[in-house]
């Protein structure tokens, strides 16, 4: 069962080939058997999952099943889940059982989906390798010595290993697309404001966005149908209707105008990754697309701008962890300041502390204009680069990451780790959608093709990604441990 896509599983449930309970038991058994090594889950919730599966089977028996009823899913541990441990990968929230559900979780439950548990991640979504988790690193299912990417590394690894047919992730600077690329799955970061952020533990509020991670673009479209849309509880969630994202999947690509940003094919790009991406672009040409080079001239400034804006927002968002209302509290505080300072120093890991310190410094008196205002000005220029490019072409294509998955422990220096996100980070600054699709391998390690569109072009992106998956079979390749029959 775990070799099927979400849409194939939906068809099998409808045809009565097996029940949601049987499917859920199968996935839980795989997690129990295989995840000790991979470490993709922080919390597995078998009881809740089986209860939800039984409810889904009962709904189906009454003729009340929707397109997602009874399908299992893994949820990044950044989404609040009522009555279930919600850690954000941090010791700070190591004891936090959420009293409420995130809007997205509420919607997927209402659609009848079955949550298998909560997936591992870089602490507070800060990282590109999943090595910043307080619950240990995640192994890439393709090769145990490689990272799965981050910050949604657990979600990507769980899907790649066949532990869950789909997962929820979040993406602030590449955290859906880069782990999707490293693990050989499909991951979509929607337009900023397309999906509600209510109940998602905040990292950088003007950049954070939730999205689906699955095997195919079609599966991502099914999930986006369920999670997109306005939410009165998130004022940044856009009041705009939700189309059926599956409707245009089969539209032909003849006449599609593809732009290749020359800055995405420069120094630092692994030649084998480049070869795979250029091969993928040729597939599009064979499908009737035309290709031209474009320029995103401010690309070089995206990482510096991001490392002002994201830490500034993070330092503000993370001020809520005070050891008073929830989360970790230090032993025997002497006074209130001591309580705050020790609770926070003990609860946050090193990368989170670095970003809080950078954000606090750049926002402080005497530095604000030079850093924060400047970065916001650059942010406008970066967005304008994309808007100008989309005047000329329909979509942009390039690598999701300059290299395939790197080795665990290979990027110990924070700045060299930050530079890994060169092709994904500008997308969040601009607020546009992006998707990573499997497009080949370097040795055993997958390569991701990143496709970008203008604001609210998700329908187009999913169509373009789906057509590639009709013409290639990279998305069907499985690591050895996912090819076992049980």
């Amino acid at each position, binding site marked *: 069962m775990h070799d099927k896509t979400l849409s194939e599983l939906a068809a099998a449930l409808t045809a009565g080939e097996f029940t949601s309970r049987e499917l859920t038991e199968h996935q839980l058994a795989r997690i129990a058997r295989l995840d000790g090594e991979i470490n993709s889950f922080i919390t597995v919730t078998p009881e809740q999952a089986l209860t939800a599966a039984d409810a889904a089977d009962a709904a189906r028996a009454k003729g009340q099943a929707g397109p997602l009823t009874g399908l299992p899913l893994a949820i990044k541990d950044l989404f609040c889940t009522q009555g279930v441990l919600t850690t954000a990968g941090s010791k700070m929230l190591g004891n936090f059982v959420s009293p409420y559900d995130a809007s997205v979780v509420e919607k997927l439950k209402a659609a009848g989906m079955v949550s298998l548990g909560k997936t591992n991640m870089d602490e507070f979504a800060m990282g590109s390798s999943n090595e910043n988790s307080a619950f240990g690193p995640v192994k890439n299912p393709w090769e145990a010595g490689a990272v799965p990417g981050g910050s949604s590394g657990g979600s990507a690894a769980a899907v790649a290993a066949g532990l869950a047919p789909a997962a929820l992730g979040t993406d602030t600077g590449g955290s859906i697309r880069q782990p999707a690329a490293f693990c050989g799955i499909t991951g979509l970061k929607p337009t900023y404001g397309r999906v509600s952020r209510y109940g998602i533990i905040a990292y950088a509020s003007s950049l954070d966005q939730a999205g689906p991670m699955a095997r195919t673009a079609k599966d991502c479209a099914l999930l986006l149908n369920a999670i997109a849309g306005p939410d009165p509880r998130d004022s940044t969630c*856009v009041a705009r209707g939700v189309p059926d994202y599956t409707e245009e999947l089969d539209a032909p690509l003849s006449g599609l105008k593809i732009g290749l940003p020359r800055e995405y094919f420069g120094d630092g790009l692994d030649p084998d990754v480049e070869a795979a991406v250029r091969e993928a672009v040729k597939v599009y040409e064979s499908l009737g697309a035309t290709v031209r080079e474009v320029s995103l001239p401010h690309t070089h400034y995206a*990482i510096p701008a991001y490392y002002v804006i994201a830490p500034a927002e993070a330092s503000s968002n993370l001020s809520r962890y005070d050891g008073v209302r929830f989360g970790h509290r230090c032993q025997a505080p002497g006074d209130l300041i001591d309580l705050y300072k020790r609770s926070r120093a003990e609860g946050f890991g090193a990368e989170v502390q670095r970003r809080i*310190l950078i954000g606090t410094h750049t926002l402080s008196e005497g530095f604000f204009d030079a850093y924060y205002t400047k970065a916001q000005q650059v942010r406008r220029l970066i967005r304008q680069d994309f808007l100008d490019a989309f005047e000329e072409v329909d979509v942009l294509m390039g690598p999701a990451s300059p290299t395939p998955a790197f080795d665990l422990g290979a990027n110990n220096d924070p*700045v060299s780790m*930050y530079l890994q996100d060169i092709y994904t980070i500008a997308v969040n600054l601009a607020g546009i959608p992006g998707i990573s699709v499997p497009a080949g391998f370097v040795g055993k390690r997958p390569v991701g093709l990143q496709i970008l569109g203008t604001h609210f072009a998700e329908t187009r992106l999913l169509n373009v990604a789906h057509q590639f998956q009709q013409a290639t079979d990279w998305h069907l390749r499985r690591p050895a441990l996912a090819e076992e029959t049980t």
Partner: protein
Amino acid sequence: MALEHADVLRAAHLARLGLSDEDAAHYLDDLGRILEMVDQLQALDTEGVAPLAHPLDATQRLRADEVTETDQRDRFQRCAPAVEQGLYLVPRVVE
């Protein structure tokens, strides 16, 4: 804009992060290199460019001034480290 040891301790205090002198020394090198990378922004002329705070230039939406939340204090205090009679307990603040 080079970062100094005192800047790290100042930021740590403002962020209520309890760092020892040794912790601050340990972070100084990393933070210095991050700021050095960030300083590339200064090379770019942004004269007359309006800062962008929200990728869609959206402004805050308004809603009717109606009560939509009910009192759920007991439920929300269940995840607090220390409460008594509906109050959060902290070390004595006023002598």
